[in-house]
């Protein structure tokens, strides 16, 4: 083979890509469009102004990374609610099992992916931070 041929073949690919739509984004000025089933930061669903979560402990049970902490409480009507609901996002592997296990559709995963922060404790999302924003 002529030693110049591979170089020409390589340059052909390079030239072809010069006229194609780029795969990279000019983040942060350009924003990606996340898919509907993207698994980003969790959110706790709300119904009747209350978190739907009934603190059944299925999500911490199923969680392979053991990143969910739930502590149940008893409210004035003797009903069960999550007095503590925390997700340690540093440990989370975003597998979505928690969403799958939830019997009351109380947790979902949002498109939120910008989770960088400055201190470790800020990565532990408390119930307040997880509650779905209206």
């Amino acid at each position, binding site marked *: 083979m002529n030693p110049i041929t591979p170089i020409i073949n390589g340059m052909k690919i390079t030239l072809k890509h010069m006229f194609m739509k780029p795969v990279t984004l000019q983040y942060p000025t350009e924003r990606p469009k996340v898919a509907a089933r993207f698994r980003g930061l969790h959110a706790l669903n709300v119904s009747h102004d209350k978190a739907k979560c*009934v*603190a*059944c*402990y*299925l999500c911490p*049970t199923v969680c392979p990374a053991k990143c969910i902490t739930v502590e*149940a*409480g*008893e409210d004035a009507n*003797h*009903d*069960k609610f999550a007095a503590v609901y925390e997700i340690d996002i540093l440990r989370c592997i975003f597998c979505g099992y928690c969403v799958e296990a939830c*019997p*009351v559709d109380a947790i979902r995963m949002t498109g939120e992916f910008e989770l960088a922060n400055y201190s470790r404790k800020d990565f532990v999302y408390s119930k307040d931070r997880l509650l779905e924003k209206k």
Partner: protein
Amino acid sequence: MVNLTIDDNQVTAPKSSTIYEAAKLNGIKIPILCHDNKLKPFGACRMCLVEVEQMKGRQIPACTTPVTEGMIVRTATPDIVKARKMVLELLLLNHPIDCPVCDKAGDCDLQNLTYEYKVNANRFTDEKFHHKIDYNNPLIERDMNRCVLCGKCARICDEIVSFGALTFIDRGIETKIGCEFEDALNCEFCGSCVSVCPVGSLLARPFKFKARFWSLTKRKSVCGYCGTGCNLTLGIKDNKVLTTLYDENQGFHKGQLCVRGRFGYQFINSNKRLTAPMLRKEGRLTESTWEEALQIVADHLKGGNSVAALATPRLTNEELALFKKMMVENVGSKNFDHSAGYAHSALTEGFVRSFGTSASPASILDIQKSDLLLVIKTDAYETHPVIGFEINMGVKNRDIKLNILSDKRGKLSKLPGAKTLVHRPGSEVAILNAMAKSILDDKLVDASAASVPGFAELVKELAAFTPEAVAAQSGLKAADIKQLAGSYAAAEKALILFPIGQAYAGHNAELASAVANLAILTGKFDKEGCGVLCMAEKNNSQGAVDMGFYAQNGGMDGLRIIDACAAGAVKTLFIAGENPLISYPNHTKVKAALGAVECLIVADLFLTETAAMADVVLPACSFAEKEGTFTSTDRRVQHIEPAIRKSAQCKSDFEIFSALITKLGGTPPANPAAQFAEISAATPGYAGMSYLSLGSEGVFAPVAVTPALVLPKSAAVVAEEGSLSLVIGSVLYHSGTLSQYGEGPMHVCPEGYLEISRKDALLKNITDNDPVTVTSSAGSVKLKAKVTSRMPDGVVFAPYHFGAAPVNTIWSGAAVTMVTLAK
């Protein structure tokens, strides 16, 4: 034995068993919701349907059908599976299916069966129940919406607990489990119903929403309250004991527990637990280090006989043996004791002289094998509720006759056919002597008795105790005493039970000899179903006696140690776990004595009233945090292992004594196992035991009996005009002073009270919950009145457990105290 075929397997089963039991025995699982191995077959749930070839393939319930020879049983044909699926569909029809918020999820029989039989949909539709949920008591929540009407709660409450709080009410689709008049549950809160409920209808409120069943670590242990020696399964999460779990195969009691065992565990992880050693500096207890505290303790222990020790019989055998060794070898003092000195005298003096041994010549298992039970004091139920359950079951299921000699009526008196003789308080010994006299007079004496040492003397000395004479002073009829004696002597097998404890000063060596005399005269000992069972108060009371942790060879006993403290003869007092300020007689005297000692050292879990007076306080460990052995009242030696890790600043008493022995120049044993090896080599009956051989069930230490007849002295109680006889004792919900730190018992019974008869209450114009000032020659205390029908006129009762209004301010150690009441 019967031969039958189950699912093509040739199996054998006892003649009396049902198909369900035969299958279970041979490892074949039949699904069921309404069965518990302690209860009688009921046949409520229809899950255990099986086909029997001889019955033309009809589907019959396995749990109520007895096995017959040659029976061919099929347990899982497609037809049966279909039928079971439908049973589940019908059960789930009205069930709320609120598993996510139901605490039973994970341990729920209905949930497990629904999963196993893949009942994913329901062909039927109906409205769910809307029963009101009973949140009226702090321990048991009743949600009848989840109920599957298996009836286990109602049956266990009737058959075993014999309380009868729950039953089926209404009929048909309206049927539900309820209390009388559909009222709130108000019972003795043993939680047996909670333990057997196959669904989440009955739940333990102290554990509600605390953790999921599957996240609990299950650790076996032995209950740390009374001397029955019940086995526990502790449910642990994050190093905290959150609940006790039910295991129907555990222990002689088959998982059955009382209110203390089931709901009294909170003291283990209480936030009132001591967290660091404390020293008294400038009059105040301040936190210190172990090194400093132990050095001060060791320095003060170098005082020979001016050092004394009191230990609680809640310590393990190893700790008690090591404590004794430290006192004798390293300190050089003979002054050590437990349980105020008198509470173990029935064993250490009474049984020693009458039976030649310091243990009961009978076991709890003898109850079911007996024909007649003679119970001294109805309090036997309150002090040892699980032994009480055994009595209930014996009387109800086996027609065992129950005779009770008591100064008040009680729950045992309500059993079918129970005969209670209510006598004047303090006359037990005289009555028992009169029974012995009556047995001699009526020639009911066993042939073996004449050769027992002391027989001739006893016959002579009993002359004064004619039933007629005793009847006059005890308030009974002579005929009743004779009849009681006659029925005891006539029974082929008879067992006498009596509780002992710090509250039962009258249950001393004299009473022990008096009951021993009856057993020896009629030859009812050393045989199955016969003997005398002395029910030791605390979980290791018998062990403390076996370890010899009591005053011997001229050492001072518990009460004399207190006196010696006050007199200045004892300069250092080491108290391990006892709370004499509340539980020993005469509050004022004990307080003065504890104040007078130069150095008071207290090792305890909590800053008890006694610990608050101490100069050095050492934080010790509970039974759940240490290894060792406990000896139950019938001398079953059981091994416990740490269920949770102890907190960093606590040391078990074993570690405390080991460290002190090292500081005093001795060599402590390497670990509890090494100490137990020493114990098994030196203690009669413990020979050959090791932690390995004890296993999970424990091993009985044999009791060798050499009978002797001794005349017990009976002290006459003189009634004073215008005053009432106060008897003190234990209440069902409490044990010693420890249960004050268990939330469960404190929810139900938070404070002391004075039980008074209706007539006396009327005379003194007292109604329920009135504060009453009770005054005796020793002092006075304010207690809430509780008017009940069980008290005889002229007698009042007060429990002794409570530090808030200590009953020992009016009680100075007499079996009966004369008191006056004022509103």
